[in-house]
């Protein structure tokens, strides 16, 4: 058994502040990599900002905003191979875009349309998980199963600070640790679970401390620092592939937007604090970093944004072009061999709807 050290409590950072705190760099990342990370951040940011607009226009339904969560998603996925599996929560709904999934698929999910359902094996991206923490054991099982088959793939489970209170999180983390499954437990600590602040969620000093109880390493990174997230995930992936089991990554950020479109945080979050956090949001910080390195011009930034916007325009057009789903779809897919009662139910439904 490898010795497990107390969890790291210091936040790992790479990006400086342009003033007193110097910029670092991540070994092994080329300029192309740095620009590709930027492109991905912009893709996610654009998806999120457009989705909010589409929601207000009534073109998608209730939507879980992930503004200022993009660095956690883009940074961690960049450390994965295509064979590795992603287990998203609703907060990472558009993470499949980083694997080439069409924007229309994710938009359709939020439009309550069946074209928003995908085959996880097409993208190695599991279905969006809505019940908090319940996908953590799935990710543990996938990682364990790959290991049993002698394959090198690992898995990442994304969940929030609130999710660490759920039994399913604990059971999944423990399983992965005991089976030494190649799993990365990626905690998006945005410090709120709807209206419940972190201090009402846990008495632990940090969430990474929880790793100690499972006998696995726990690290903390600045979740708005895409490079720090990338580096920490890369380290965890290396451990996982080497057969050393799971790592818990606590990425600390701040939910600078409502929980979802249906939520009004003014009742429980200090708006001044939100404004302060918006100042250090992840995309702006990364762009400033790239500019300090002389890697990003206004023109290049504009081109990246235009490309992302185009992807969204295409996506929403495609999603809206889908015809309304036929009622027959109610009975499709739940079972490989549907019972005869489904045919009877559908026939009766059609008869009643028809006249």
């Amino acid at each position, binding site marked *: 058994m490898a010795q497990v050290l107390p969890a790291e409590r210091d936040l790992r950072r790479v990006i400086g502040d342009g003033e007193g705190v110097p910029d670092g760099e991540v070994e092994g990342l080329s300029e192309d990599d740095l620009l590709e990370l930027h492109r991905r951040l912009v893709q996610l940011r654009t998806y999120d900002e457009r989705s909010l607009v589409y929601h207000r226009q009534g073109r998608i*339904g*209730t939507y879980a905003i992930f503004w200022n969560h993009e660095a956690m998603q883009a940074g961690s996925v960049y450390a994965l191979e295509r064979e590795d599996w992603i287990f998203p929560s*609703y907060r990472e709904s558009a993470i499949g875009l980083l694997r080439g999934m069409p924007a229309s698929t994710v938009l359709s*999910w*939020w*439009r*309550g*349309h*069946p074209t*928003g*359902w995908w085959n996880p094996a097409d993208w190695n991206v599991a279905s*969006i998980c*809505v*019940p*908090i*923490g319940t996908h953590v054991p799935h990710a543990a099982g996938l990682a364990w199963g790959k290991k049993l088959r002698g394959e090198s793939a690992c898995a990442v489970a994304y969940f929030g600070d*609130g*999710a660490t*209170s*759920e*039994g*399913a999180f604990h059971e999944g983390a423990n399983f992965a640790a005991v089976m030494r499954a190649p799993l990365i437990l990626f905690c998006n600590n945005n410090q709120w*679970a*709807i*209206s*419940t*602040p972190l201090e*009402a*969620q*846990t008495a632990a000093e940090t969430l990474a401390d929880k790793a100690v109880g499972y006998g696995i390493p726990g690290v903390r990174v600045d979740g708005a620092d895409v490079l720090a997230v990338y580096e920490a995930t890369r380290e965890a992936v290396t451990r996982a592939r080497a057969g050393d089991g799971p790592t818990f990554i606590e990425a600390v950020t701040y939910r600078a937007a409502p929980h979802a479109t*249906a*939520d009004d945080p003014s*009742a*429980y979050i200090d708006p001044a604090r939100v404004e302060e956090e918006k100042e250090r949001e992840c995309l702006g910080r990364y762009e400033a970093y790239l500019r300090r390195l002389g890697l990003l011009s206004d023109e290049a930034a504009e081109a990246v944004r235009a490309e992302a916007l185009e992807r969204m325009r295409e996506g929403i057009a495609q999603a809206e072009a889908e015809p*309304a*789903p036929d*009622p027959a*779809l*109610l*009975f499709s897919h*739940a079972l490989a061999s549907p*019972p005869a*009662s*489904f045919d009877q*139910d559908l026939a009766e*439904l059609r*008869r*009643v*709807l028809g006249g």
Partner: protein
Amino acid sequence: MAELTLVEAINDAFHVELERDPDVMVMGEDVGRAGGVFRATAGLRDRFGPDRCVDTPLAEAGILGSAVGLCMAGWRPVCEMQYDAFSYPCLDQLITHVGRYRWRTGGAMEFPLVVRMPYGGGVRAPELHDDSPEAYYVHTPGVKVAIPSTPADAKGLLAAAIRDPDPVVVLEPKLHYRTLRGEVPEGEHVVPLGEARTVREGTDVTLVAYGAMVPLAEAAADALDDEVSTEVLDIRTLKPLDEAALLAAAAKTGRVVIIQEAPRTAGYGAELAAILAEKAMLDLRAPVVRVTGYDVPYPYWQIEDAYMPSVERVVDAARRLLEF
């Protein structure tokens, strides 16, 4: 009387009951600072303090399990499950302990806790915000289950649940939280558990429903108005069931349509139908029929209207009975 929405009536019940009994406390996810995601617990934390309206960690099994211990310490906890489908982690505690503990103590100890949750579909929500899980709860021995369909009943049944010495699960039709308004008695108002409500009297066909299906049954009765006289019965308390009211409503017309939003197989409607088969055979002029959700996962929302029982399906079922 005050004119309140259904969710305002629930909030009113809380204010009255927490004031009346200092042992009553409210606990759940986001019930305190935010006053609940539907605002059912608004104002309680400010008025009664953070120990009597508690924002718990995000853990439904923890909420209900600790409520069992709180009962042992003399409290009367009212637990909120944020949504129907998010209550499932609490089923372990419900089945293995909540429904058995009193029995296990030879009746020596009481567990006067309440579990309440918004339930049901039709609200255009993402997956797992639409379930009708009443059968899981009804099927658990040792717990009572109530489902209001009006603002006044929402207040009165919750008050009864809070005062009851046994565990009570209250499911609230979220579709009608804000769309249904009605007269609600001010101050203390209790609707006893175990009493059904005759919504309208009729002689030709009886529609039996509960929760969100009651307004639907009324709309179907309106649609049938020119043809027949329709009786509508609101079950209100699924367990203990007001069997006498069910049998009387069935005997009056001899034709019964049971409406249930949940999937059909082994749903609560099957229990009602079984009771009618056992005890009302000679009063029936036609088979008992059910209009229900289907035996499939609750669908994505663009297709949910086809899943939900509709006025058309209820009218069609009533006509089939009349032509039988």
